[in-house]
């Protein structure tokens, strides 16, 4: 088991290194790195100084080494727009995005799996078909449009929920969170629901397909032949079998949720990393863009690693074969 973990860790490090090379090439080798990293409003003396400071006149592999060193120590340049380290900007905004993403995933999982189970057990029933029709709508609707409609209905027409911003936050272990107070919750509700909708539909479809397939398996028939109540057959026998691919999907989709948060944050003016990215793109604040990409890549590789480990922990066939490998 330890061997397996170490092997996966090494693979992740390799993946990170490759990605860092790609990003480095994208930033330094394509186009003019001077434009990307130096404030376009700086004068010649400033440009010369920063060029030397960033080592832009050095051979490429030296630059890569410097880039790597800087990245590992968290120095990714200073934002043009705000003249603070880009990394700091992003880290400040990260909790808002992560909280939003987590809420969205919780909603998607808490609703998606039970609905999918129900739809899969009796695939020809009217409620199953309704759920499936709903799920098609759910992943067809572009996220931003759903956000629009939500604002239209709940803010403008009904006036129940605020349409922008994060509202009040309370500190949880030194990190500001919204869900612990009522004002924050009302601000969190729509964005989280908006972000959750696509994943919810995905999970419903996935769970239903898995359940449908599982119900036809011999072990379900055998479980019934043993006289087990249907509740146990579904909640233990079927669920445990379909959980493995579903957990994998949930894990991998979490990264995608963080990316999609870009849209939701823009619509609801949620002060997270995504909104920061859009604002930065609009004002061409390139260090922030680069920093965002690096951090996202890192998060993705991390998530992939965790999901892989989780998968092997859950599936006894994989776990035991890895042990003997």
């Amino acid at each position, binding site marked *: 088991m330890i061997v397996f973990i170490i092997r996966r860790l090494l693979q992740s490090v390799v993946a990170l290194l490759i990605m860092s090379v790609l990003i480095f090439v994208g930033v330094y080798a394509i186009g003019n790195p001077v434009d990307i990293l130096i404030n376009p409003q700086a004068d010649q003396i400033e440009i010369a100084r920063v060029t030397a400071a960033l080592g832009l006149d050095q051979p490429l592999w030296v630059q890569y080494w410097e880039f790597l060193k800087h990245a590992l120590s968290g120095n990714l340049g200073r934002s043009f727009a705000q003249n603070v380290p880009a990394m700091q900007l992003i880290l400040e905004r990260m909790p808002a995005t992560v909280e939003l993403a987590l809420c969205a995933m919780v909603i998607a999982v808490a609703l998606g799996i039970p609905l999918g189970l129900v739809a899969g057990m009796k695939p020809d029933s009217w409620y199953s078909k309704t759920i499936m029709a709903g799920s*098609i709508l759910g992943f067809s609707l572009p996220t931003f449009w759903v956000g629009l409609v939500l604002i239209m209905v709940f803010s403008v027409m009904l006036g129940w929920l605020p349409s922008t911003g994060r509202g009040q936050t309370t500190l949880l272990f030194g990190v500001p969170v919204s869900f612990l107070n009522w004002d924050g919750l009302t601000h969190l509700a729509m964005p989280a629901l908006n972000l959750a909708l696509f994943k919810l539909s995905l999970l419903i479809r996935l769970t239903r397909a898995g359940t449908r397939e599982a119900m036809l398996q011999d072990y379900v028939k055998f479980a019934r032949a043993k006289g087990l109540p249907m509740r146990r057959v579904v909640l233990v026998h079927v669920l445990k079998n379909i959980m493995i691919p579903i957990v994998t999907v949930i894990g991998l989709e979490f990264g995608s949720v963080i990316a999609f948060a*870009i849209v939701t944050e823009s619509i609801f003016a949620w002060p997270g990393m995504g909104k920061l990215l859009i604002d930065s793109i609009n004002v061409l604040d390139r260090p922030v863009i680069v920093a965002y990409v690096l951090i996202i890549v890192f998060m993705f590789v991390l998530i992939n690693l965790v999901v892989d480990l989780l998968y092997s922990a859950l599936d006894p066939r994989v776990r035991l074969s890895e042990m003997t490998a």
Partner: protein
Amino acid sequence: MSVAVERSPFARIASDFAASRLALSGLAVLALILLAAIAAPLISPQNPYDLAQLDIMDSKIPPGGVSADGMRFWLGSDDQGRDMLSAIFYGLRISLGVGVLSTLAALAIGLVIGLTAAWFGGWVETVIMRLVDIQLSFPSILIALVLLAVLGQGVDKIVIALVAVQWAYYARTVRGAALVERNKEYVEAAQCLALPTRRILFHHVLPNCLPPLIVIATVQVAHAIALEATLSFLGLGMPITSPSLGLLIANGFTHLLSGKYWISFFPGLALLVTIVAINLVGDQLRDVLNPRLQK
């Protein structure tokens, strides 16, 4: 004993497809939308991009209202006095055009790359597939955003971004299907006959890769349209001179809060109906063309 009548595969697919009323209605709606998009200049009451036809006095009229010179705004008008119905027809044109164009281009590129990978195997295949894997592990919106940040604005840049986001999916599908075909005996036979590689690939392997490709392409058109709409909404997509549905929605966003919902809502509805129709058709196509579900 009766003999089963042999139908052409196309007839079988068509009749299987028609078994779902939902899919058929999706197809019908899609046909209507395509017609509307192609015939936009002919059926629009007004050309919303001809500044001479606009009157600022006609702005923000609710649906059903009438303009200063008697033209009825069935779906209302926006803040520049444009008729929403006309704007939607033109917008459909652009949205569909960009979506279909980028899908076809991505399909062509992905096809070539996938076939290359499957045919040559070895390290060529490994390198290509690793690239595909890396690209596919990132969400499309992220890749598109970063590309547009680097490339800047413009219709061609958007198409490039959309193609860059999609090609990997086709490449992977084609390579998978081509691998299955490559291992079949008829390819070996063709190779024994010393047929040129190109001929084997295009006349024999390719036709068998088509069914999954068709399914994916259909659904991907919807995805491309949605992605373009999202990018335009975020301000990184189509320029104001050729507004797609996404841009129309973005324009109306600010007016939403003051109750003038129609400027955003109707283009949004048009977008929604288009995407749902495409998805319905694609879903049924997938079930029909999937050999494993054949009863």
